[in-house]
């Protein structure tokens, strides 16, 4: 029986597995091989250089800058969108018809093509004709030159990142909140527990699995960010928004240093893998 089960199981997994091997696993391992060479993408000979690319990486100022930019971006987008998403989901609770409208609004960026949205944001951020700066000036606030100021470019791309991500957190939290047992809350009401205490000591602990999901997927998503930053700033000005994926892209497809670019990609993968495992471990300890 076991044998038959295993055969059926493998048969069912086969389509997914074949595509996974062909278009993810195999290219991925291939890129590891490239990362050990100084290949430029054109030369027929791929000169083997060992771990030189990886060693160069850690003395590369551009890479270190990129690492800190990626960290700031990932932490702010993940944390702000998760916390804000939770608060919005709380506010949407027991709201009837209007919650449908709000949810649709919050979710619409998630299903919008990032590239198209980024083009619109670029015009919104414009210092002369952009709605954002015009609005700020109308309120007598200074309107920064968002995308070409080294101090404001990163906040600008973080805003777009949160804009894009928020809807996912809202929907997942809203679904989680709606599945909470109402009887506990009714009991708490009878005992005169305040609204804030209910959130602090009941909702947040009960929502922990949902929070883990939102945090981990958000983190994996944010650390690999590429599209909207590519459109908005292409990593500039002065590398102030040069996240790891962009660095990889520029090294690989503009400077044709494919070996080096692959080394960046592999380092990024290792970082994601390690941090995800860490988050997993922390979560397990809590349970």
């Amino acid at each position, binding site marked *: 029986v076991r044998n038959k089960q*295993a055969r059926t*199981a493998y048969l069912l997994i086969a389509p997914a597995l074949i595509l996974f091997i062909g278009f993810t*696993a195999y290219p991925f391992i291939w890129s590891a091989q490239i990362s050990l060479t100084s290949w430029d993408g054109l030369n027929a000979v791929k000169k083997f250089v060992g771990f030189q690319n990886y060693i160069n990486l850690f003395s590369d100022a551009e890479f270190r800058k990129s690492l800190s930019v990626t960290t700031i971006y990932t932490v702010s987008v993940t944390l702000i969108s998760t916390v804000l998403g939770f608060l919005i989901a709380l506010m949407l609770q027991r709201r009837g018809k209007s919650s449908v409208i709000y949810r649709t609004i919050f979710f619409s960026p998630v299903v919008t093509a990032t590239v198209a949205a980024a083009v619109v944001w670029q015009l919104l951020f414009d210092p002369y004709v952009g709605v954002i700066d015009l609005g700020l000036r109308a309120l007598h606030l200074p309107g920064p030159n968002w995308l070409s100021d080294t101090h404001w470019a990163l906040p600008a791309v973080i805003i777009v990142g949160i804009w894009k991500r928020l*809807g996912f957190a809202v929907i997942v939290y809203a679904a989680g909140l709606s599945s909470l047992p109402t009887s506990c809350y009714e009991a708490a009401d009878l005992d005169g527990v305040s609204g804030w205490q209910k959130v602090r000591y009941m909702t947040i602990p009960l929502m922990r699995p949902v929070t883990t999901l939102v945090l981990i997927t958000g983190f994996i998503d944010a650390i690999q960010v590429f599209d909207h930053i590519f459109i908005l700033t292409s990593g500039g000005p002065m590398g102030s928004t040069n996240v790891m994926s962009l660095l990889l892209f520029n090294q690989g497809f503009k400077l044709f240093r494919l070996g080096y670019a692959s080394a960046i990609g592999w380092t990024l993968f290792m970082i994601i893998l390690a941090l995800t495992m860490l988050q997993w471990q922390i979560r397990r300890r809590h349970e």
Partner: protein
Amino acid sequence: MRTFKKVSIRIADHFALIVISSVIILPFVWMITTSLKPPKLAFAAPYLIPTHFHWQNFVNAWHEAPFSRYYVNSIIVAVLVTFGQVFTSALAAYAFDRFEFPLKKTLWFTLLASMMVPLPLLVIPSFQIIQHLHWADNLAALIIRDAGLRLESFFSVNSFIQFRATLMTPRKWMGLVPYALFGPSFFRLHVQRLPRLLYLPFCLLGMISSGR
């Protein structure tokens, strides 16, 4: 006093929601308003309220590039990729959920780790594989590349199967796969994801055809 507090909290909630959702909706409103303005007034006040209805813009844009072809391409790719992903993910999710087999855990973690591979890393090797298959410049390449297991689909099928399985007898399990694929609630979920699926194949299409 208590009801006063409740009412004021509700008003504050509404106020916060209106502020946040107007920020979220801003790019969409701007896009619609600007798309209706005549070219000379494109960057003139009022910025967010449509005053002119210059539908000619849409006609001009449509004639600017072969959009009908783009739409057909996008729809073909999006529909087939979605079906491919749902199909492969549903079968795999079913197997992981219902059967015990050797290497189950290893396979599971490998598939999970695939989510963490940076996409730009795979572009060159994928392109070479597709060239070897003589599929370059072909929509089929895009479709097959993305038709594999997708974790979002995988998880949604998984929870769907788990839910359904509690309602049915073991003998009917096999009959679930088609239901998971074409059941109304599940299908709706994936139709909502269609637009998001559109952009990735598009970017790759651009890269592949300009790379030649």
